[in-house]
């Protein structure tokens, strides 16, 4: 008997969640879909952005005075590294393609030389026979 009446906070929590979810789901969904909500969201965004802008401006002016590079300046250096990385990648690609073309040309040259050798051998043979 005593065991059955023991309080189980997890069970209560789960029940509260399930009841809240099922009761409020529809209401919440309806209000999320209203134009007023979208409008409100826009206003919150606006305030957030204004705050961020203020913090950014203040931080940048402080960093400038303290002679510490800002994220903007660090990003400039990072961009230069990215550009070098792109150039290396292009070079790597170029070298690979050149290598491929060169390999094909070398193979063709080998074949041509073999053909010339064969013709020379035939010529020598003919000349020998004439002697």
């Amino acid at each position, binding site marked *: 008997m005593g*065991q059955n009446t*023991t309080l*189980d*906070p*997890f069970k209560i*929590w*789960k029940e509260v*969640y*399930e009841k*809240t*979810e099922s009761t*409020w*789901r529809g209401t*919440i969904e309806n209000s*999320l*879909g*209203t*134009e007023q*909500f*979208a*409008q409100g*969201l*826009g206003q919150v*965004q*606006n305030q957030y*952005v204004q705050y*961020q*802008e203020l913090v*950014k401006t203040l931080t940048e002016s402080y960093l400038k005075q303290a002679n510490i590079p800002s*994220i*903007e300046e*660090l*990003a*400039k250096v*990072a*961009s230069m590294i*990215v550009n070098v*990385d*792109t150039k290396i*990648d292009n070079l790597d*690609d170029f070298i*690979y393609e050149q290598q491929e073309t060169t390999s094909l040309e070398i193979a063709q040259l080998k074949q041509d030389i073999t053909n010339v050798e064969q013709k020379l051998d035939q010529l020598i043979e003919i000349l020998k026979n004439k002697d």
Partner: protein
Amino acid sequence: MLTKEFKTPSDEGLKKVKRLTEVFVMEPEPQVGQTPKEVVWTKNKAKLYRYQPAVKKTNKVPILMIYALINKPYILDLYPGNSLIEHLTNKGHDVYLLDWGVPGYEDRHMKFDDYIVDYIPQAIKKVLRKSQAKEITLLGYCIGGTMSAIFTALNPQLPIRNLLLLTSPIDFTDAGLFTKWLDKRYFQLDKLVDTLGNIPFEMIDFGNKLLSPISTTYGPYVSIVDRVEDDNFVLNWKLMQKWLNDGVPFPGEAYRQWIREFYQENKLIKDELVIRGEKVKLSNIKANLLNISATRDNIALPNQVAPLNDKVSSENKTYHSVETGHISVVVGRKAIKEIHPYIENWITENSY
């Protein structure tokens, strides 16, 4: 046996608290992305991985997975036995993944144009070279699928044999609540991008959670408390929570483009989207197409996914709807039992 008989609910409660403490405080995070891989190519933050290079490849057409610009791609290789990549490589497919990496502030000017024109073609070139293949299968997930469709439409001359899209929005006529929230009149798009540079992951996550605020905020915690003694459930819960909270910022200009040109102006489906000066015509897509949507997806709604099949010129095209959500299309019991084998079969059938 004796202790079990005398167990009281408060004992159970204490046991639960102890286990919950272990789960939240003591235990390490599970290891994700365990399928062996090698880096084939890198560019800026992006990396091209090849999976299980030592395993024999029996399928001649390699698969290149293009991931979204939000969240991390290890959802495609979440855990052994719960991984699309592992499933495909075990079946003899040569799988590559283009991971965009974590953009820095210096990448805030990156647009879809840059990813689609400068990165994807290079990745395809590297895949074809590495696999010594003549054709390729492109597999895009979420925004990665939208990007794959745009890329395929822009490059009909390339040997893209198969195009496989997972929950990839194409038509933004009705994107559910997002259509309302992203209304041009209220959404502070330019101010956000101009001030923040890149859009923080937390902001994107907030938007996604707002679609169903109670169940996404409290739901996971109620379920973990309820089933904390089920080790398998705990492992899967931790894996999902790790991934859900491990996002990446959205590159600023790409975000501006995504919201304005896709959500607000719906340019892609109307053939009005221009990528680096070239108009994207979805009717240029001729590759075999498998377009998968999820019925419970509230991020890429089925009505945003399905219209692609009517636009493409592919002779072989399939639209497949699954009874899952946006994420459970690639991980979880249903994905393992039904969706992974379905994808594998379709790729195999269309690679000979």
